[in-house]
């Protein structure tokens, strides 16, 4: 059988450049190198501080007063051009360790802060990666890149439950940061050949069927790359709604036979060898580099792929892989499926079908005839009228701040400083241990609905009685107990503190709440909430500016109106 030809060869998309944006005429935009500085020819279109703050809630780990001022002057387009060109802060300084820890690098209960225990913590747990995640989120210049990479890390999930080597997780996250504004086709290939993903979803060492042993190829990666990373289980319209058959039922995107086809296709790959080491089937676990193929462990028969595409017999592992990834990449579901999830992570849990279709159209064609340009997709998401003119949107047009964003928004909005040690533990207490989802299905499913409503609210899946108290108690620690002390076992530890000094100069309770409203939540606090909080502040001694600032910060940041960004 012959493979059905595909119109677009998607490989090598990583070299695509981002296109410079214009506000109204995306389709006629001219190209500019991704590294270019904001062009002097762009119109100077500033925005109000309130609109800048809202944009920063969607595009960063939370507005800071300085960034609000800067972005208000810069305007949306210049800000996006600048952010899309900012290189990754990233995770650095992690080094390879063998999968099995040597005895002098294992946790020692008798000496929990001794050399062996610290070696285990720093190399065989995600402690340092999670800590750096918060350091980067609080201070990195590449805010938008980090936000998009964090979203991607929750779509193309690998988890510390199995990937506990810090260098492996750092490598995977650096890859997502690098690819965040590249082409989705390249991202899909990088994820597929990542030995970290190979280990997590078992494409590494997946062998062809063996009749003597009675074994079949492993179906794990085959299923999840389709179900979670690219197309989902049901056919979608370009606006993200379900295609329905004559019985009003969803139409599956694939059958079990297709899973068997992809499972066979993803055979014959193993970990890359360590430098200087010999290589063979199978190599020991190594998370640096990309997986390599061994043709004699690759299933050579035909494989049924999507939409009737069949991989012909006798192809090399690389040829098969290219065909498979091209086929997935060109499936019409990818734009609405991935685009909608990125909208949900950045802007709103319930985008309108029109919003999804506009973003999916940009995924299909960035205006230059290129499919899968993620920089163009991100720009489309943040430039869309539904993200911008909805600046006075109701809460149902926003989303719950997930724990990581709740934490960083409070820290950045209130002059926080942190080495990330305390913050990483708190994210865990709130149900989101960074890069450590329980399964490949992430911390929360994108389709989660509030009980008793049709409203989609993914982040609410991890919002329960235990975790909401953890959120409030986190604020109590930061505001009333001075945060967290320095950790002597962490190099250059700063501890975790807020700086509420600017709030103490606000003056009246009314002015104080206004200032918090502007700094933390783009003035979206309702009048009744404003009144409730100012009344409580009135019960405090009017000379106690610090006490009032603390109470105001606690009440605003613990309010449902702040928790639900809108």
């Amino acid at each position: 059988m012959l493979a059905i030809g595909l119109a677009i060869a998607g490989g090598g998309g990583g070299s695509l450049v981002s296109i410079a944006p214009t506000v109204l005429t995306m389709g006629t935009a001219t190209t500019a190198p991704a590294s270019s500085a904001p062009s002097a020819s762009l119109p100077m279109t500033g925005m109000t501080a309130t609109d800048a703050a809202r944009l920063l809630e969607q595009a960063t780990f939370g507005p800071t007063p300085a960034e609000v001022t800067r972005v208000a002057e810069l305007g949306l387009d210049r800000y996006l051009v600048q952010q899309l060109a900012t290189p990754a802060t990233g995770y650095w300084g992690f080094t390879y360790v063998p999968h099995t820890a040597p005895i002098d690098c294992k946790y020692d209960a008798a000496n929990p802060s001794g050399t062996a225990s610290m070696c285990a913590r720093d190399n065989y747990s995600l402690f340092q990666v999670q800590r750096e995640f918060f350091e980067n989120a609080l201070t990195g210049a590449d805010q938008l890149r980090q936000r998009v990479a964090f979203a991607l890390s929750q779509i193309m999930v690998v988890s510390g439950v199995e990937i506990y080597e810090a260098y492996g997780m750092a490598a995977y996250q650096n890859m997502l940061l690098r690819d965040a504004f590249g082409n989705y086709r390249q991202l899909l290939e990088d994820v597929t050949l990542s030995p970290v993903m190979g280990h997590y979803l078992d494409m590494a060492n997946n062998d062809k069927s063996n009749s003597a042993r009675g074994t079949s190829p492993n179906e794990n990666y085959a299923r999840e790359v389709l179900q979670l990373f690219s197309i989902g289980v049901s056919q979608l319209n370009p606006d993200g709604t379900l295609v329905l058959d004559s019985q009003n039922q969803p139409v599956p995107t694939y059958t079990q036979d297709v899973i068997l086809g992809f499972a066979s296709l993803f055979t014959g790959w193993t970990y890359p060898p360590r430098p200087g080491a010999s290589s063979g089937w199978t190599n020991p676990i190594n998370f640096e580099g990309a997986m390599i193929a061994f043709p004699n462990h690759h299933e050579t028969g035909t494989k049924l792929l999507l939409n009737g595409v069949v991989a012909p017999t006798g192809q090399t592992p690389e040829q098969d892989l290219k065909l498979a990834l091209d086929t997935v990449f060109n499936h019409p579901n990818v734009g609405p499926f991935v685009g909608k999830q990125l909208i949900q992570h950045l802007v709103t849990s319930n985008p309108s079908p029109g919003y999804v279709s506009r973003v999916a159209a940009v995924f299909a064609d960035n205006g230059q005839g290129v499919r899968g340009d993620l920089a163009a997709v991100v720009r489309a998401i943040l430039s869309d009228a539904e993200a911008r003119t909805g600046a006075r949107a109701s809460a149902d047009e926003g989303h719950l701040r997930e724990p990581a964003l709740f934490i960083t928004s409070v820290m950045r909005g209130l002059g926080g400083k942190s080495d990330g040690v305390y913050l990483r533990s708190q994210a865990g207490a709130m149900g989101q241990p960074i890069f450590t989802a329980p399964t490949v299905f992430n911390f929360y499913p994108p389709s989660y609905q509030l009980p008793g409503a049709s409203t989609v609210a993914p982040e609410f899946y991890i919002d329960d009685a235990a975790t909401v108290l953890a959120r409030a108690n986190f604020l109590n620690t930061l505001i009333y107990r001075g945060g967290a002390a320095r950790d002597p076992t962490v190099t250059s530890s700063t501890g975790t503190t807020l700086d509420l000094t600017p709030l103490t100069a606000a003056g009246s309770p009314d002015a104080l709440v206004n200032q918090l409203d502007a700094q933390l939540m783009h003035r979206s606090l309702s009048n009744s909430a404003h009144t409730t909080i100012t009344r409580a502040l009135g019960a405090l001694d009017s000379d106690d500016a610090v006490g009032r600032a603390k109470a105001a910060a606690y009440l605003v940041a613990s309010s449902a109106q702040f928790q639900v960004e809108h």
Partner: protein
Amino acid sequence: MHRRHFLRHAGALGGSVALAQLGMLAARAQAVASDYKALVCLFLYGGNDANNTIVPIDSAGYTSYAATRGRLALAQGALLPLVEKSGTAAFGLHPALGGTTGLQGLWDAGQLAIVRNVGTLVQPLTKAQYLAPNTAKPASLFSHIDQQHQWQASLSVSPSDTGWGGRLADQLASLNSGGSIPAMISTAGNNLFVTGRATQALTIPTSGSFALQGFDNSAGGIARLSALRSLLGIDRGTDLLDAAQDVMTGALASSAVLNPILTNTASPVSGYFTGLTSDFAKQLLAVAKVIEARASLGVQRQVFLVSLGSFDTHVDELNTHDTLFGDLGAGLKAFHDAMTGIGAAQQVASFTLSDFSRTYKPNSNGGSDHGWGSHHIVAGGAVKGRAYYGTWPTLAVGGPDDEGAEGRWIPTTAVDQYAATLASWLGVNAGALANVLPNLASFSPATLGFV
């Protein structure tokens, strides 16, 4: 679309006010003492390989098993024989589930039953029907999240926004109207299983404090707490804000009641869990503490959700199963002993759910892939144990019960029947079972009699 009003708030807040009168509290305690029942769902996330949970040990059965399972075959001598009332044993239990001091002991004592080849179905299904076009069968078979949802909803016809545990609590709500906490409690977070039309579970933590911290009796502290509470009741009318407020409102009400119970280190049930460090055991200990306090909490019919993860054994299944079954066996046995210790064994039944079983034929990485019909464990003093229920599938790859050529068993008992049996025991009368299990009429018999 606006959210339905949930009983948990009326129950949690209104109830505690109404019960301020001691006489009523005493009456509730008496009612609970004479009539209390609880179901404890143990959700095995990832899809437990039931083919290595219950294994044929007779000569022919084991030989066939070992030939197909290859590297995944458990040693015949290691299996724990499940001796039936007839005195013979055709099947053995995975050794890590525990011998005579573990789950094998519960079986021997007649307090553990096995329900065979249960799975998601729209209607009874033969292989010929499965292979025929246009047969009604579950959507998205072999997909984790879809099959989890179908098990939790006991509905495979179409997506459901409620679970059968939740609908069960809805159905029995009148027995719980005087309770000071929600009838459903989860140690596994939000979950479709414990989502009803009008009732929703409370999630409790398994370690640390379950309390709002940082408020004192100063004028400022009182004013701030009062404002925090006021903020939870204003600006109603949008789903996301309402939900954020409601979760906190429920947390404040329930934590005030439950924190002293959960943090009580002197609780007599704690001793049964000595030496058990798994998260699963901690969840069951928290459940045991709540059940121990049942008289003061005033809830007569409870549904608990506990979870154990990492059953998605695509690689290295033998080692993973050893660890997970070690936790499952020891935790469940400790919980059962704790219930016996506080005189509640007859009133509490535990049962497993899981995404699916796994392929009988192994894959290339010492693991197995997503399957379908699965065997499940039910334990408790009221369980009619030391017995099997349902029909054993033909363990043959490509055979009459295999949907394809990898050994994914077409279920011979529906989740609906399994759930109906448990719902019936908890107190739903036969005529009302359809309220809890809307597709039950498609299967016969409606209940299986294992409890």
